[in-house]
């Protein structure tokens, strides 16, 4: 059985940052990711990131991933498993990993610390005929378009005006695909307004307090019906509009991928502000299990910039808890935490902060 200091599950922004932080202190790392390439959602992000210039602001997500992967390659104490899925956690701190081109290798890894940075899965939306070919999640559209150069359709209806819905709409326009409209069930645009404005300038209407009612077609989607909704999210009769689209892109939120944390027996709580069930944690991202840390969307749905800071915090703390020496640990840890609170010091992050407060374990822990 393979033995390591820290197993990091998930090679997205949080997992990569955690690996860099922990490995630079000398901890032996195994980084496990189920994708063909490391980087998680970052490798599909062609837009420039917000955040602080000190960090990654102004750099496109795809370049951030490239830089972090490059940095990891220089570290000898990091072993990377790509196209590998962690399938279980056992009490003696063993995780099982399925990997190999045919998925026929089952490997056991014993890790003294585990950082779960598994990310999130996309939410589905119930509507009539939503099983017709042409209904995609926004993540799938990004994978097709930005990783494989495949056009998902000719005319798109985007559902959801959060940052993902807005950004993917913009990417579709950049790929030369027609975006018919964006609908948003809430009365306000949830994503950054600068993203919304730049899409509007290119002629895409955004309908707030609207949702999709049904799609129809024989072999695939030929038309979609959108409808205004009232305060209770009920359709308002007579407000239906029929749109000529062949593709529906769903960007209606994400849910933390917390299965392994359940499996490991971490204390979990349903926090709607964070997108679903998340593990209780202290401010160093340690869960109720002393050997398990969390970072990124699995700890609560947020932006990649905060996921990277959480990864740094979890990586630093996990490594130091193993006895890795870090001269200015307190100073570094406090600096990361204050950068994270700076990122969250805006009205859009209020909900996330409320959510985190509900699962934060306060006070000194052993």
């Amino acid at each position, binding site marked *: 059985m393979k033995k390591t200091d820290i197993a990091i599950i998930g090679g997205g922004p949080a997992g990569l940052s955690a690996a860099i932080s922990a490995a630079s202190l000398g901890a032996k790392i195994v980084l496990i990711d189920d994708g063909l390439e490391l980087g998680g959602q970052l490798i599909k992000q062609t*837009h*420039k*990131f*917000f*955040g*602080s*210039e000190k960090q990654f*602001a*102004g750099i*496109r997500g795809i370049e951030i991933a490239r830089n972090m992967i490059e940095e990891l390659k220089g570290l000898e104490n990091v072993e990377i498993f790509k196209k590998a899925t962690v399938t279980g956690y056992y009490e003696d701190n063993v995780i099982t990993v399925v990997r190999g081109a045919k998925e026929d290798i089952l490997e056991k890894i014993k890790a003294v610390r585990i950082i779960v940075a598994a990310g999130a899965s996309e939410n589905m939306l119930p509507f009539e005929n939503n099983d017709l070919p042409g209904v995609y999640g926004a993540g799938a559209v990004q994978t097709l378009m930005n990783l494989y150069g495949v056009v998902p359709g*000719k005319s798109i209806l985007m559902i959801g005006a959060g940052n993902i819905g807005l950004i993917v709409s913009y990417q579709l*326009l*950049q790929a*030369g695909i027609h975006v018919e409209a964006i609908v948003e069930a809430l*009365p*306000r*645009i949830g994503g*950054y*307004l*600068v*993203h*919304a*404005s*730049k*899409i*509007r*300038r*290119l*002629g*895409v209407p*955004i309908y*707030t307090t609207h949702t999709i009612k049904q799609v129809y077609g024989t072999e695939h989607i030929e038309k979609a019906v959108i409808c205004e909704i009232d305060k209770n999210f009920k359709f308002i009769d007579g407000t239906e509009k029929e749109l000529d689209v062949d593709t529906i892109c769903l960007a209606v939120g994400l849910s933390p991928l917390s299965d392994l944390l359940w499996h490991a027996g971490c204390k979990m709580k349903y926090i709607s502000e964070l997108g679903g069930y998340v593990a209780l944690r202290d401010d160093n991202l340690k869960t109720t299990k002393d050997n398990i840390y969390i970072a990124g969307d699995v700890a609560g749905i947020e932006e990649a*910039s905060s996921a990277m800071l959480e990864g740094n915090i979890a990586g630093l703390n996990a490594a130091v808890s193993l006895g890795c020496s870090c001269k200015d640990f307190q100073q570094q840890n406090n600096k990361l935490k204050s950068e994270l609170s*700076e*990122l*969250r*010091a*805006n*009205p*859009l992050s209020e909900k996330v902060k409320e959510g985190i407060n509900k699962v934060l374990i306060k006070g000194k822990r052993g």
Partner: protein
Amino acid sequence: MMLERTGVPTEENLEKIYPDKKRLTQGPVVIIECFQKIPCDPCAISCKFGAIKPFKDINDLPQVDFNKCTGCGVCISACPGLAIFVLDENYSENESLIKLPYEMLPLPQKEEKVCALDRNGHTLCRVKVVRFQKIKNKTNVVSIVVPKKLSGKIRSIKVEDKNDER
């Protein structure tokens, strides 16, 4: 209709960020259409003249000292939100020059006529591209000459794709 509902800034939004009439007549100046507190500071850091004041908090809205702004346009491609423009009302008697960010294809050629769009994406007229700056970070900067009366409305362009068969 509010900006939060439509994505289109209102007259009221724009009044708050526009330079005064006097400054507009003095040559190129920045217009930053950023109305929401989000954690983002590259504009202030990119400005070499201190015209975009340094942020106290990363979530601050940009504050501009229009008298220090030279209209150089470095901030246009620095802004992750593509929310920055430069306006020169002195270009000629009846025309203004607008510099705007552009991340689409095809790239416009110098002297090419393109569609000029307003904040709703409606085509207002056809205008001439007088300069195209290819920027390393891929947010390119296009300079267009527009009728003076439309300088407050035009904020985007559409370039005809000559190879487009869709």
